[in-house]
């Protein structure tokens, strides 16, 4: 371990001597992520959603209900668009909209008569925050409508008969509301308006999850750049004759490889801490999850680096190694969700991308951060990453012992 530390210190000193290179490896992904965020316009803090309303009742009550969504702070977050039911369902199915509120014919009459009735809300599963807001709002409004009917049904029915109410009717209604308000206490029945919610399958993009997805992609792009850049350094060591001298010392080859892993672990840990700290605001997850994510990000990052390390050590020349590292880097970044998040990819491409080492790691990181993984899942994910690192290390040691230096 001491020898590995000696080797790691050497690698860290070399990195420190060339901070511009380190900055490029980390800066490019950050820049690309920023461009992508601007390009896709997902960086806004306040979400803006579209509520489709299919009002088949077209009564005063239904108008009041749908109009409530355009009032106050909700008005800044939601645009309400009236649609036909079939058209609304089709648009929600395509992911165009946060939710579809279906107000059936006879809804207003049922509310005023105090008979059971039903509202139907169809939400977009690709969005998280806005459909929840709509659901909560509809729940509150349905309860409010029910209690208004119980408390002041006669007055309300009077308003719906047509024509403007007289001053006397308004005064009588006010008095009646006041009396009823004091009298009802705990005698109210449960609401008789039932809200049925439905979540439909869509191919749409989860705009709420995109900042988190971009963050994960950016982190893995940084890992890919770091892995690519740091792995080719071994060719410089070979060119400078340092490997020849190292192999003539009593220090084991595995200490040299362990030193590189240790150095990279520390660099990746710094990147992971920075990235996840910045992302903690976006992700809004617990400290325990962040810690697990940090550990996984670091270990899987080392695995990706070691993949590059082994690949470049099998290249015949330093130039070929650089070409090979680039050939590996860009397809992995493009297909493995590290350039375009999986959320923006066609399903077939995302499925393939998740099979790449960085794609798999990125998916697992998402699960650790935002999913509900069980203890066994966590153990398996970490076990997979550690096994991969061990396998790559074994190959690197073997290659250093036989063929690479000589």
């Amino acid at each position, binding site marked *: 371990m001491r*020898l590995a530390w*000696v*080797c790691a*210190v*050497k690698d860290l*000193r*070399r990195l420190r*001597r*060339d901070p511009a290179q380190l900055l490029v490896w980390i800066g490019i992904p950050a820049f690309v992520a920023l461009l992508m965020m601007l390009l896709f316009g997902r960086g806004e803090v306040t979400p803006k959603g579209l509520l489709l309303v299919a009002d088949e009742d077209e009564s005063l009550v239904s108008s009041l209900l749908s109009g409530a969504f355009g009032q106050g702070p909700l008005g800044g977050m939601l645009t309400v668009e009236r649609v036909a039911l079939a058209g609304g369902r089709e648009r929600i199915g395509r992911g165009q909209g946060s939710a579809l509120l279906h107000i059936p014919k006879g809804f207003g009459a049922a509310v005023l008569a105090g008979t059971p009735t039903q509202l139907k809300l169809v939400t977009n599963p690709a969005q998280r925050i806005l459909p929840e807001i709509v659901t909560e709002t509809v729940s509150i409004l349905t309860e409010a409508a029910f209690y208004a009917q119980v408390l002041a049904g006669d007055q309300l029915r009077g308003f719906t008969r047509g024509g403007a109410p007289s001053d006397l009717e308004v005064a009588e209604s006010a008095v009646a509301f006041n009396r009823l308000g004091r009298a009802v206490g705990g005698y109210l029945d449960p609401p008789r308006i039932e809200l049925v919610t439905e979540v439909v399958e869509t191919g749409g993009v989860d705009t709420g999850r995109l900042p988190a997805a971009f963050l994960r992609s950016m982190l893995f792009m940084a890992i890919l750049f770091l892995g690519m850049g740091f792995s080719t350094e071994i060719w410089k*060591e070979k060119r*400078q*004759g*340092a490997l*020849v*001298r*190292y*192999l*003539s*010392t*009593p*220090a*084991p080859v595995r200490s040299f490889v362990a030193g590189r892993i240790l150095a990279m672990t520390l660099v990746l840990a710094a990147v992971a801490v920075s990235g996840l700290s910045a992302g903690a605001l976006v992700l809004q997850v617990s400290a325990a999850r962040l810690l697990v994510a940090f550990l996984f990000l670091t270990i899987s990052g080392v695995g990706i680096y070691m993949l590059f390390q082994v690949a470049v050590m099998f290249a015949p020349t330093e130039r070929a190694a650089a070409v090979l590292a680039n050939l590996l880097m860009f397809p992995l970044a493009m297909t493995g969700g590290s350039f375009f998040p999986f959320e923006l990819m066609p399903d077939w491409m995302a499925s393939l991308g998740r099979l790449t080492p960085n794609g798999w790691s990125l998916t697992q990181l998402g699960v650790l951060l935002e999913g509900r993984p069980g203890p066994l899942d966590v153990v398996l994910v970490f076990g997979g990453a550690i096994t991969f690192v061990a396998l790559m290390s074994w190959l690197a040691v073997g290659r250093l012992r036989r063929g690479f*230096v*000589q």
Partner: protein
Amino acid sequence: MIEVRKLVKTFGDLAAVNDASFNVRPGEIFGLLGPNGAGKTTTINCISGLLAPSGGSVRVMGHDVRGDGRAARSSLGVVPQELALYEDLSARENLDYWGGVQGMRNPKLRTRIDEVLSLAGLEERAREPVKRFSGGMKRRLNFVCGILHRPRVLLLDEPTAGVDPQSRAYLLDLVRQEARGGASVLYTSHYLQEAEDLCDRLAIIDHGRIIAQGTLAELRAILGERDLLRFQGVFSAEAVYEALRAEEGIEIAEISETLLVLALPEASRRLPAVFAALSAAGAEVRGTSLIQPSLESLFIKLTGRELRE
């Protein structure tokens, strides 16, 4: 102590080292001389454990480099032919790394680093990146990286190649100091004069084979007190042999259609007679050189070519 016995190293059909045997004793500087591709570096790589021998045995301080490689390497200090330094690190950082790799620890390591920096004359620039150093400074640092841990066996593969005369003299002094301290030094070089001055014993290697070894006096005895006459031109081997048969004490060391090398005593005095004989043999002489008895002339006699060819 280095013991090389019937060492063979092959690459496919090519035998880079073929049946080489020699010893290097403690406190001795042993020179391994040969032209490019003769097998010097391959021999050193086999001793340092970088290459696995195809046959024979190599022992360092009694440890077989194959069976007990780690113990063998723990006694070794290697100064490779090419610089083996991290140019982006400072001299002190390089020494700190190589000392650490050799198992040295602070504060002993720090003290020793100060000593070797002083030996190499690099104290003033110890914190500068090596890439800013001159070639001679890099060579000196390269050398002290190899002796930092006070190795009992030192392998020096052309450590003065491309070095200015001042730095070369400085490095040779360092080599002598190590030998005086009891180290067994195996030294390869292109510079025959340097080897003559420095080495206690020498071996001449060509095409992977050791063709002569001994002290300088023993090697000179092989040549006798004869000079070498080297002719370039057009020669018929049969006619030349016939013409020179009558000349007493002349040995044909090497002959081809374009080259003739003769070993003979008092060559300058006998030059007119040799020219006359060659002329009678129909030879067309375009160039001549006279080489006095030396390691150079011995090398030419043994290999038929100059060391730098």
